[in-house]
């Protein structure tokens, strides 16, 4: 009988595949994971505390820094909570601009997600191919908002500015091209035999467990649970668009990846419809909002579907110009709650595959 011994392996915080400063303390038996202890907090900036010392408007740029890959969606979630608190009406045109810029943000985020995932699995080319289209997306967003990543485009009661001339046509043209690019990724990454061998039946997440552990976004839908806030309880103008919610079957890494892939095709449909509809709308992009934002005493919770899952903002007002308390329900953070059990029994290489398939964003995890 050979005597074997378990040992600890520090996976991170400085590790190329943790997508930031995230640490997993792995207890290994050879290459097999016996226990995993996720440790986060290396990027904790105390955003929630900072919010208490800022005015409502000043906090918008901080939300960018949570998920800097899909900044518009973060802005949107926050302003929705404040609007709910104040009872502000958002003009129709602003809602459409939010949809277009938000879905472009989602596209940018999903491109990174699939790109870095193929990098995690070991295919470097997929990463750079995804970056090619992301660059176009970033350029479009820059033209709209003036910033590539930290957009701060949403305002309480609307959006910062109307689309520049010809911008919508550019987006439309890009959206015409996008499906062929997605076909290309499918050909290079999704259809690859080794990629499928690496990701199928790895990190299986059962639908009951996923619901119980509050996992959201493509990670939840990969398990076959049909819960997309855009469909389940449409906010903004999402009830006017015709789109499908892609679902997985087995809840393994491949399904989670594939959900993101298919979601990109759906968001192309959404943007195209939004551009069609916005052309018939005229009006302001920001509603009637007082100069100094002083919501009435009370609290509000609003949530939207971002690229990582459900982002929720809980805002408490005490009647002053500064929020009394802001809490962010971060999808990446909560999706990690089940990581330990998910990793057990898999190999070191699978740790990378599973962690990557959850698509976490450390700015959001550590808040």
């Amino acid at each position, binding site marked *: 009988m050979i005597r074997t011994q378990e040992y600890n*392996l520090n996976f991170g915080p400085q590790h*190329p595949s943790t997508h930031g400063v995230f640490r997993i303390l792995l207890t290994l038996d050879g290459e097999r994971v016996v226990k995993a202890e996720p440790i986060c907090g290396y990027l904790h900036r105390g955003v929630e505390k900072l919010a208490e010392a800022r005015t409502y408007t000043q906090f918008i740029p901080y939300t960018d820094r949570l998920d800097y890959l899909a900044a518009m969606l973060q802005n949107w979630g926050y302003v929705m909570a404040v609007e709910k608190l104040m009872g502000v009406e958002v003009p129709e045109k602003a809602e459409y601009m939010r949809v277009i810029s938000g879905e472009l943000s989602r596209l940018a985020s999903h491109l990174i997600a699939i790109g870095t995932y193929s*990098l995690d699995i070991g295919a470097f080319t997929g990463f750079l191919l995804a970056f090619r289209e992301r660059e176009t997306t970033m350029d479009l967003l820059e033209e709209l908002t003036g910033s590539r990543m930290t957009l701060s485009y949403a305002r309480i009661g609307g959006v910062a500015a109307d689309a520049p001339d010809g911008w919508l046509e550019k987006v439309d043209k890009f959206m015409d091209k996008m499906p062929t690019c997605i076909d290309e990724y499918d050909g290079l990454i999704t259809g690859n035999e080794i990629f499928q061998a690496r990701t199928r039946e790895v990190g299986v997440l059962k639908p009951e467990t996923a619901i119980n552990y509050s996992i959201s976004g493509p990670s939840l839908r990969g398990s076959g649970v049909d819960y997309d806030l855009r469909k389940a309880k449409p906010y903004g103008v999402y009830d006017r668009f015709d789109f499908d919610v892609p679902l997985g079957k087995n809840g393994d890494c491949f399904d989670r990846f594939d959900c993101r892939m298919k979601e990109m095709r759906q968001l192309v449909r959404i943007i195209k419809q939004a551009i069609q509809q916005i052309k018939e709308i005229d009006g302001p992009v920001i509603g009637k909002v007082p100069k100094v934002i002083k919501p009435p005493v009370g609290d509000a919770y609003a949530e939207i579907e971002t690229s990582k899952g459900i982002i929720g903002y809980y805002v408490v007002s005490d009647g002053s110009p500064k929020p009394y308390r802001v809490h962010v329900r971060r999808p990446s953070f909560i999706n990690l709650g089940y990581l330990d059990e998910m990793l057990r029994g898999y190999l070191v*290489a699978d740790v990378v595959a599973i962690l990557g398939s959850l698509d976490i964003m450390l700015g959001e995890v550590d808040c």
Partner: protein
Amino acid sequence: MFENLFVGIANGLRSLLGGLPLEINEAIVMLVKLVAILVFILVNALWLVYMERKVAAFVQARIGPNRVGPKGLLQTTADIGKLICKEIIIHKDTDKLVFMLAPMLVFVPTLMVFAVIPFGKNMAAIDMNIGLLYLLAIGSLSTLIFWMAGWASNNKYSLLGGMRSVAQMVSYELPMVLAILGVIMITGSLKMSDIIAAQEHTWFIFSQPIAFLIFFIASVSECNRAPFDLIEAESELVNGFNTEYSGMAFAMFYLAEYANMLVSCAMVTILFLGGWYAPFGLDFIPSWLWFFIKMYVMMFIIMQLRWTYPRIRVDQLMGFGWKVLVPLSLANIFVTGIGMYIYRAIGW
């Protein structure tokens, strides 16, 4: 005229040293040959790093290095220059002797192997009669060096890398040797020049296609290239065995990878692609250039593989080696044996 360029140089050197006793004369010529091979490998390794980056750029719709020198040709030289200037960090828990020995020795197996490789007609430094056996035996030594590096680093990631390298060697050396057996059965010799001579009319890639595939896969695995680059696996093991190496020690491993590729491609060329023989009667191109072209075609394929495929997982690697390649190579030997018997029975 070009055909016998190098042979001519060697003969010229011999006659130049004609006054010396025969043994000394031969020793000097041999030394010159080996130094020439050394230079050849090093220049090739430098060039291959550049080529890989250009191929990667080509695959990934980028430009690649284009700043240092014309078309970025001197990029690798600049990189090596930088790495030479850098400190080699030896952290306090390493096994210092073994740690430093590994990068020093990493080129040795490769250089030794090159001694028997025939680069063209009559262009092997030594044409041993057990050349192939020697090549296989020495070629697998490099695993030992990776294991040394992984062990001496005293880093768990490196250790995992080292362990993987041994496991990989054990399970891929076997199908590799078994695949070659098919070729040896036909030629009946282990001598490189005999093996090439047997391919004058038909390359073994056509008569032994399965052996070629197995050998190619196994040799990609042997030189730790994607999709079998498990011992480096930068996304999981953070470069595995060479995590702790920096400066020139790292560069040695880096260059050795390309030198190993060169060996693998040379072996594929010798065993399956007809060595220096010109295809389609294109004899006006000298034999050594043909050898070179064939080698670089293989090299290009290996590079394309790396930039297209994801990495395989360690249990899948073992499974593929033992459950697919080994049985397949055994079957290949069996079929080759029957085929040869029938061949003789017909009396062709």
